[in-house]
Every structure is written in C-alpha cells, then in structure tokens.
C-alpha cells in the first residue's frame, strides 16, 4: 500500500464525479414532467409558470445550465432547492447527519450480529444453531422493512412502551430504526460469513494449525477468521454505501429525516438541484467507502498490494 496509490485513487474521483454529474444532470432533464408547472402548482397562471421557469434557470440552454452547475460546484454551491428555496447544502446538511447516524448504527448492529452468527453457524455446521440462525437470516432477507418496522413499533412502542415510535431526537429514537434497517444487512452478512468460514476451515493451513496443536479458539479466531473476512468486508462496505445513500422506506416509517426521503421528495417535485446534490454526495460516499474497503483488504491479507 503506497500513499501514491491512495492519491491516485483520490484523483480518479474527479473524472468519475464529473461523469456522475453529467449523467444525473441529463437524467433529471430527460424525465417527463415540467418542474416549472409542478412548482408553480395547479393554481398558477401561465405567466407565473414562466416566471418560475426563469427563476429556476430552466429557460437557458441545457449546456449553459450545466456549465453554471459545474461552476457553482467548484464554489461549493450546489444551488438552491427549487421546491423550498433553501440552499441545497442546507437541505442536505439538515438530514445527512441523521442518515450517517442511522447507517452507522445499523451497520454496527449488522456487523456484530452478522459476523458472530456467521462464525458460530459456520464452525458448528449442521447444528441446531446453524439451522435456526440461517432460517432467521432467511426471514431477515425476505421481510420488507415497512412491515418489520411497524411490527417492532407495535411491540416496543405501543405494547411495551420502551422506545418511541417516530422521530430522531435522542438515542432511544435510534434503536428501532437501526434494528429494522440492520435486519436485512445482518442476514446478508451472517450468511456470507458462514459460507466464507466453511470454505476457509477446510483449507490445508487450518489443518496445519490444528496439527501444530493450537487450541480450536486460536485456530478459528486468529487463523481462519482473518481470511474468511475478506469477502465479508466487501459486503459490509457495499451495505454501508447503500445505507448511506438513505433508506427511504425506513425513513418514512419512522419519520426519520434522512437524505433518502429528501431524494424521493425532490424527485417527485422535480427539484433538479436537490436531486443532483444528493446523488453527487452519495456517489462521493460510495467512492470513499470502496477505497476504505480496498485499504482494509490489504490490512487483512498482506499479499494484496496496490500499486
């Protein structure tokens, strides 16, 4: 791992983000629907609609619009939301910390639970625990989050009254959405860890380790796990990226003010600047997470070297 490599990866980001910006800029404009009409509302007269169009800068040529958009990005200005009139950065910053918190909490839940379950299930293959945990994992993958979310609310908010059902004001508010959102990832990580573990513990070097007389604990935790984790890290990385992009359904069910909801709302109201801003942010996050995953690889497996 060289720092040159990382710098190069960071530099590659520039053309990638450039491409992303061009694609998203084009897509939102190809979508059917006229933002000026939607934003002016059903009651507006023709000249008001035209006035809105001018205000949004949509009367200009698309190329000019794109150049202005790029120029502003370099100034750190993502534009103004056409729906609310607030700066896009403010709209995003009002929600992104919530998304970050929820994503990190659920990925924490998912990693701890998923990896532990996966290891035990893998080591004790075909045991009752194995069957049971994989059955639960199957549920975890199949359950729609809005259903799971409402069920958790029913039990923990209405019946037991332990956790609040909606909002994002305190740590208590985080518990139910994090579990709901983490359930799916937990299941995926558990199944991944299990199969990876099964593969690794059949390898020769594990037999060697056992032949050396090492305790089973040492064999599993020091020798097997490190190798078994490589594919798991990829999955965790991908899941984190997805969760950071916002979890629309969970955010809606728990009234969690995150960027997923912001994105959907802005798509529905054809709020071009916000759509572009959110997508750019999410793309940036994805690239960073991929980089981090690659770095963790080389840490887990010293044979992996990037040049």
């Amino acid at each position: 791992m060289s720092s040159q490599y990382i710098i190069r990866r960071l530099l590659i980001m520039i053309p990638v983000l450039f491409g992303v910006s061009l694609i998203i800029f084009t897509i939102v404009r190809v979508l059917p629907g006229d933002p000026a009409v939607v934003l002016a509302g059903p009651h507006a007269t023709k000249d008001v609609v035209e006035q809105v169009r001018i205000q949004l800068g949509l009367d200009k040529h698309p190329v000019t619009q794109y150049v202005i958009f790029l120029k502003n990005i370099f100034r750190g200005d993502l534009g103004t939301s056409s729906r609310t009139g607030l700066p896009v950065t403010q709209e995003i910053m009002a929600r992104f910390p919530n998304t970050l918190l929820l994503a990190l909490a659920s990925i924490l839940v998912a990693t701890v639970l998923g990896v532990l379950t996966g290891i035990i299930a893998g080591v004790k293959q075909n045991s009752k625990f194995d069957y049971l945990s994989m059955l639960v994992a199957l549920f975890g993958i199949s359950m729609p989050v809005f259903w799971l979310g409402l069920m958790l609310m029913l039990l923990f908010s209405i019946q037991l009254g332990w956790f609040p059902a909606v909002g994002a004001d305190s740590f208590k508010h985080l518990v139910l959405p994090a579990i709901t959102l983490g359930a799916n990832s937990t299941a995926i990580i558990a199944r991944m860890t299990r199969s990876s573990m099964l593969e690794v513990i059949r390898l020769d070097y594990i037999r060697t380790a056992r032949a050396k007389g090492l305790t089973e604990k040492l064999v599993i935790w020091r020798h097997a796990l490190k190798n078994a984790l490589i594919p798991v890290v990829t999955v965790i990385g991908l899941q984190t990226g997805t969760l950071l992009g916002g979890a629309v359904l969970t955010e809606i069910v728990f009234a969690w003010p995150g960027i997923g909801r912001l994105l959907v709302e802005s798509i529905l109201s054809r709020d071009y600047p916000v759509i572009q801003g959110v997508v750019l942010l999410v793309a940036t996050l994805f690239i960073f997470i991929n980089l981090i995953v690659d770095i963790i690889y080389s840490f887990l497996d010293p044979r992996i070297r990037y040049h």
Partner: protein
Amino acid sequence: MGNKMKRKGFLGMIILVAFGFFFFLLLGVVEDPAAQTKPAEKVKPVAAKPKPKVAQKLIVASGTDALTMDTHFGLDAPTFTILDHMVESLLELTPKGEIVPRLAEKWEVSSDATEFTLKLRKGIKFHDDTPFNAEAVKVNFDRLLDPKVAIRYRFLVAPISTVSVVDDYTLKIKTKAPFAALLSNLTHQATAIQSPTSLKASWDKAVAKPIGTGPFIFKEWVPGNKFVMARNDQYWGKKALLEEVTWRVIPDDASRVVALETGEVHVAVRIPPFDIPRLKANPKLTVLDAASVRTIYLGFNCLKEPFNDKRVRQAINYAVNKEAIVKHVLGGVGRVSDAAISPGIFGYTPIKTYEYNIEKAKALLAEAGFPKGFETTLHPAVGRYYMDASVCTAVAADLLKVGIKAEIKMMEWGTYLPSILREKDQVEHKIYMLGWGCVTGDADYGLYTLFHSGEWPKKGMNASFFKNEKLDQILDAARSTANPEERKKLYKEALTIIHDEAPWLFLHSEVQMVGVQKNVKGIIVHPTERVIAKEAWIE
C-alpha cells in the same frame, strides 16, 4: 515494530479519508450562515395568567413538511396550516364560511364591486417590531402584484389595478373589472400580511423566516423533521394558551397513528379511515371530522370524441355508483357530491346527484350512438388525493358494466399535472382526475377557473375544455355585482348548467379525519384543510 508502523500508517489513512469526506460537506455548510434556523427572540415570561398544570407544549403530526417560510410563495395546505399561526391575513374565513375581520377591522365595497375600502386595526406590531399600518399592507400588495415575483396564487389579487394609502389605517383597492370575490380572496393565506422590513430584504426570494402579526412566533425549522413556534406574548388579540407548538413531519399514515397511540404526538392529521374505529375505542383518544372544501372529480375532455356529446358524459355519471365508492373505497370518509362545489362555500346550492342507474346510462349511450359502449383511457392522479387510484379503478369497473372499457394510465404527479395542463392541441387525456379545494370559500374560486371558457389551459384550470356561453355570462355577471343575494342566485344557475352539461363525472368531497388526545381541547379542523391550534390548550 514494523508492523506497528504499518498499522499507524493505516489509521492515518482512515483519518485522512474521513477528513476529506467531511471537507466536501463543509464546503457547503459555511456558504450560507443565515440558512440555519435560528432561535426566536426571547419570549418574556407571562405575568398574570393562571398557570396550567400541564406543560402547554403541543405536538401536531402532519404528513408533509412546510415547503416555504414565505406565505406569499406558499402552495399547499400543510404550509399554510403552519404559517397561518404566525402570519395573518386581512380577513378571516370562519369554518362556517363567513368572512370576519382580522387585520382589517371594517370594509366597504362599491356597488359595482370595483372599489374596496379597508379600515385596518390600530396598535399592532409585527414580530420584528415594525408597526402594522396601511403602508405596510401596501408593500405586501406591491409584492403580490409585482410580475417579477413568482407568486403562485397571483390570480387571487390579479384583478387589482391600484392599491392606495388613504391614511395611516385606511387602504383603498381598485380593480380593473368588477371582482366581487376579492374579499374572499383576501382571506386566503397566500395574501397574508408579512413584515415590510423582511419583505424589502427579500423581495423576489422567499423570506427565511415568517414575520407576521400572529399569536405565535417562529422559533425553529428543521426541514423534513419539525417546525417549532412559540407564543407571542405581545399578540394584539386573544393570547394563545399554548406556550409552544411543534409540527412534526410523519409521512407514513400508519406511523402517524402509532405516534398518536403512544402519546408521542397530541394531534395527528389524515387518519386512515380503517383506523378510525380502533382510535375511537381508545379511551385516551378522540377523532374529529370536518368536511373539506375539496371536491374530487373526473373531468372529460369535451373536445374529444365521444365526450363532446353531453349524453355520453351524462351516461357515465349514471353508470358510476358514487355511494359505493364513498362507502367501500373511502371507508365512509367522504360525501357524495351534489354540485360542483361543496357545502360551506359561498354560492353553494345542492343541485342533484346523478343516481346510479345502469339502464339509463345504457339508454343514453345507445341514443348517442354507442349501444355497445366504447374504449377510452382514464388518467388517475396517484398518491395525491385520498385513495385516488383505487377510486379510479372502481370507476373503471362500473364503466365496464355499460360496455365502456377504460384503460387506466397511471403517472406520478410530477409528470401527470403538466400533462393534464397542456394546451388543447397537445393534450392526450380523455378522462383525467383532479381535486379542487375551494379554499377562499367563494364559488368564484371553485367555478370560474374550472368552467369558464376563457380559462382553458395553459391560462386556467378548465382542463375539460368546456365551453358554454350562457355559463360564461353568468360567471362574469357573478363577479360584477357586490350584492350577495344576487350572486347566490347566479351561482345556483351556474351550478344547474354545470350539472346538466356534466363536463365532469361528479364524485365526492373529502372529509378530514384528525386524531386528537382527549386532554387536548380547542383544536379546530378548518374546511380549507388546516388544523388550527391558536386557541387550543392541554388539560
């Protein structure tokens, strides 16, 4: 040692990456310091009020957030609901549909409805201490009428030609043509009066916080999450009992109900009908219902065959079982329309409902030359009105019984609305769905732009491209007289023509269901789809 170094390097990398990542975000944050919501000016403690035992902090759950802090730029009921508590209009529309004084104390209208004199209340200050007077109101009208400012509801005041200050507290408004509905339009929240100081600083852009004269003062807005307002202890009228009201955004219907059941919120709007029996059985809760002025209809494109034939339009009105739709699709939360506008609106008179009669429908279709029906398309609104798409499915099922095969073409709202509001040569729709909230409480608002032939898109909302000269004359005449009795008579005539000509399939008006904790008193559910907490308190 080497290993340790490597690990340190690794940690360094992670930190570096994390920093880079936050730097991107920070770029934007520093940009606009005024944008972050700020706490309101400190509210002085109340002196001589009897202290209530419970904290007077009310939480209302709404389905969507406010879209702007500037009432002149407002577009939808949730935004107006919140802003109404802080920014007041000149006149007020009571839930019963009467126009009563608010910031204007008295008014006079010339008999030809072209000159309106308003006497303003004295001794009022805006939340920023700017005095309220005729000059301040004029600044508001100047902005509402400025063509450079994109006021969504401009048409409310568009007929105005001049606004002049007579003295400190008297204002004279003249209109280009007779416009009797102006008084009703001045009850609309989009014409409410904001502090001229804040307007001048943000003329063609939305103000960042609402500064009006109302009983509550802006405290905090966290977009997508909550909006907090605090009591205005300097309020000119009856001071609020609540210290604070928080409007919390809970988009999911089921979650909003849960939050009400767990006691996390005091009030929840738009309760799904199938949850109502359960909430009513809960000893801690009650459900308020109030008719809405929103009328839901399917409009026919009267320029396209076969809908250019009145008999076909009437036949469809006979073929659809409106009662069954209200009962089964809406769970009873609705009222079958008996006119193109709803009760509670000035000018409403019950005309008639086309009864459900398949035979009559078939006979009319045969007369029009379609004994076996025909094929057509139906464009529902999706996710805009209560159960909208399901209502359209029910309509299509009924139409099938008289041989009309209506293919349902769904579009989401952002695509749908612009496609409906195209000019006559460009539209594709044959049957479209819309709901019209007649929120000024005057029939002019509910009929003129929807049925007058001068209001075809893109100018107005007559997306049925309906044209009837007699009706045009009546609607114009009703604008030109200030005599309420005369206007009522004219609107009755207009509604009768509309009923007979049937440019719409008349469906229903919505009923708002609002869930409230039993210890919360004084909540008003207004027919214009607003929840008013100004005089509410918690026991």
